[in-house]
C-alpha cells in the first residue's frame, strides 16, 4: 500500500492506574491503516487489542486509564489533541465501531429505529445534518443492506425481540449508516454460532468492499483473519510483535509467539493438538524485562532479558520485533 495512511498510531502508551501500582497495558504500539485496507489485529485475551482501539476513539475509561504517550493521527490530525467538537465529527462520520456483544451494545429500552435515528441525527453528510424524512429512509436503507427481512417492522422492534445474529446485523447497519471512512470491528462474530458468524463476516466483508471502507478487524480466531484481511498485526502483552501481509504471515510466521499461536490452532485435517505456548500472559504490574515474551519463548537469548527488541524488517512489509532477526544476534533465520 502506498499514499497517505488513513490512521497512524505512533508509539502509543496506555497505563491503567490501579490499587497496587501502574499497569503498562500498551507499551509503545505502532500501527498503520491505509485507505481501503482491511487490517487484522490478533492476540490473546488481555493483550491490549481492545484498549488500543478504544484509545483511537478516545472511549477508554479515564481514570483508571491514562494515555502516557504517543500520537494517533487520523487523516493527518492527532486524535489525542482534538477538541471535543472535532472528536465528535470523527466519531460521527470518520470512525465507527462494532462491539463483540451486540446485546450489550444496544440499549434495551429504545427501539432499533430510535437508536439508528439517534446515530444518523448526529452525523454530518457533506457538512450538513440530515432532515427528519431523510433520516428515516436512511435507517431503512441501512437495515436493507445488511439483508434483514422486514426492515419496517424491525425499526419498531426492541433489541430483546431479535436474535443474536440479527442484533449484530443491526449493529453493523448502525455503524455503516453514517458512511464512515474506517470501521473498527471488535470480535464481531465471537458471541455467535459458526454458521451465523460466517454469515455476519461475509456480509461485513462484502459491504466494506462495496463501500471501500477501511477496516480493523480485532479477533483471536486466526482463521477469520486469514479469510477476510489484507494485512495482520500480532499483539502480545501490549506490544506489536509481528506485522505482515496476511498471506505471508500464514506462510511464514516469524515471531516465536506467532509460530506458537499458529501451531496451537487445531486443524481440520486432524493429527492431534499441539501443546500450545507454555506459561501464561504476564502480570502487567511487573512485566518481564526486555522482551515481554521471553519467559515463554523457546528461543530465548541473553539479550532478550535485557533489551526490548526493535521491529526488524525481514521482508517487504513484514516486520518482526524479535532479536532472532538481528543480523548480529540472530543465528537462526
Amino acid at each position, binding site marked *: 500500500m502506498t499514499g497517505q495512511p488513513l490512521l497512524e498510531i505512533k508509539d502509543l502508551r496506555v497505563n491503567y492506574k490501579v490499587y497496587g501500582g501502574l499497569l503498562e497495558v500498551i507499551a509503545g504500539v505502532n500501527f498503520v491503516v491505509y485507505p481501503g485496507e482491511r487490517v487484522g489485529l490478533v492476540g*490473546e485475551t488481555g493483550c491490549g487489542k481492545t484498549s488500543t482501539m478504544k484509545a483511537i476513539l478516545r472511549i477508554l475509561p479515564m481514570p483508571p486509564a491514562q494515555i502516557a504517550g504517543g500520537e494517533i493521527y487520523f487523516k493527518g490530525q492527532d486524535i489525542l489533541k482534538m477538541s471535543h467538537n472535532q472528536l465528535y465529527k470523527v466519531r460521527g462520520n470518520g470512525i465507527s465501531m462494532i462491539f463483540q456483544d451486540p446485546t450489550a451494545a444496544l440499549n434495551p429500552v429504545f427501539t432499533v429505529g430510535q437508536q439508528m435515528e439517534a446515530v444518523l441525527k448526529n452525523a454530518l453528510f457533506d457538512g450538513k445534518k440530515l432532515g427528519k424524512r431523510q433520516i428515516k429512509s436512511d435507517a431503512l436503507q441501512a437495515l436493507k443492506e445488511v439483508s434483514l427481512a422486514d426492515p419496517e417492522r424491525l425499526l419498531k422492534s426492541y433489541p430483546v425481540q431479535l*436474535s443474536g445474529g440479527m442484533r449484530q446485523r443491526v449493529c453493523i447497519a448502525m455503524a455503516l449508516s453514517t458512511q464512515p471512512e474506517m470501521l473498527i470491528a471488535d470480535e464481531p462474530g465471537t458471541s455467535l454460532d459458526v454458521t451465523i458468524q460466517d454469515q455476519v463476516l461475509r456480509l461485513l466483508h462484502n459491504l466494506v468492499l462495496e463501500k471501500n471502507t477501511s477496516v480493523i478487524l480485532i479477533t483471536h480466531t486466526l482463521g477469520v483473519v486469514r479469510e477476510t484481511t489484507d494485512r495482520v498485526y500480532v499483539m502480545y502483552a501490549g506490544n506489536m510483535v509481528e506485522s505482515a501481509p496476511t498471506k505471508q504471515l500464514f506462510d511464514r510466521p516469524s515471531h516465536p509467539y506467532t509460530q506458537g499461536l499458529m501451531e*496451537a490452532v487445531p*486443524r*481440520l485435517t486432524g493429527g*492431534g*493438538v499441539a501443546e500450545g505456548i507454555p506459561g501464561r500472559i504476564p502480570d502487567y504490574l511487573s512485566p518481564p524485562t526486555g522482551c515481554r515474551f521471553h519467559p515463554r519463548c523457546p528461543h530465548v537469548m541473553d539479550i532478550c532479558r535485557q533489551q526490548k527488541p526493535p521491529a526488524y524488517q525481514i521482508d517487504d512489509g513484514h516486520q518482526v520485533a524479535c532479536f532472532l532477526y538481528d543480523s548480529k544476534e540472530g543465528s537462526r533465520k
Partner: protein
Amino acid sequence: MNPILTYKALKKYFTIGHKDLMKKEPITVKAVDGVSFEVLEGEAFGLVGESGSGKSTVAYATIGMYRPTGGSIEFRGENLYSQDGDRPQHIKKEIQIVFQDPGSSLNPRQNIKQILELPLRIHQPRANRLEKIAELLEMVELPLGYMHKYPRALSGGEKQIVAIARALATDPSFIILDEPTSALDVSIQGKIINLLIRLQREFNLSYLFITHDLSLMRNVASRVAIMYLGKICEVAEAGEFFQHPKHPYTQMLLSSIPVVSEEEERLKPEKVVSRGEIPSPVNIPSGCSFHLRCPYKMDVCVNVDPEMIDLGDGHTVRCHLYPDD
C-alpha cells in the same frame, strides 16, 4: 467394544408457560426430542451443534440435573434413573462432568483442597483424603502447593485443570466435557486437550465431548454426532464425518469454519452458503426441522420428518436425500 452409555429415544421437554389463563394448554420447548446413540467403552464421542440445539440438555440429563421426559439412558445396561426417580450412588460416582466456565464452576470461597475434598468425602469416606488429593494434583500435573490456593489466584487454564481433577476424584469411567476449552485462549487450549487425551488413555475413560469447534472436534473425538433442534442429524466415525459429510447441515457447518491453511481449505466441502438462523425450539418447523435453511429442500421435507438411515460402517444420517439410488 461394549457401549458404556446408551441413549434410547431420550426426550426432555420444558414447560415455559401456558397458552390460556386456565393453564390447561402448556407451551413446551422440545429441547431434546428422541435422541438415540451409544457411547462405547474408552472412546471420545463428540456432540456438535449450535446454541439451542439441545447438546447441553443431553449432558445435563445424563448427570442428573434434569430428569428425562421420556426415553431412557442406560449405564452398562443398567437404567440411570431407578423407579423412584433417583440415580443410584454407584452410578453417580461413575459419571462426572467438566463445565465450560471454570470461573463459575469452582466455589470462590473454597481452596483447591476443599474443592477436591467434597467428592472424596461422599464417595470414598474411608480413604486417606490428603493422600488422594495429592495424587489427583499429580495426575493433572499441578504442584502440590496449589492445595492451599483459592481459584482467584489461578489462571483460567489452571482453574479448568482443577475442575478436571475434581471430576477425576471419584474414579469415574465416564466424563462429560461440556465445551471444556471454549472459555480459554488457543495457546492454553492445547495443554488442556492433551491432558484430557492422556488421562483418557491412562484410565480408559469414556468421554462425551461437547463443543461447537469442529476443528477441535476433529482432533479429539473418535465418533461425532451432530444435533439440530433437539434431534441428531448425522452420526459417523470422525474421519468419515469430516471427509464425507452427508447431511446438508453438516456440510453447511463444515464449509462455514474459518481455517488457517490451504490444506484444510481443500478438505472443506463445496461451499454450502449458510443462511437463516436456528429457529426457536418453541415453534419447531414441520417435517424436517432443517428444511427452512436447507439448500436441497424437496416437497417431502416440509411434511415428513425423515428417519435415521444407516449408510454402513456406522455412518447414519437423517435426511430425505438418502439413500440416493
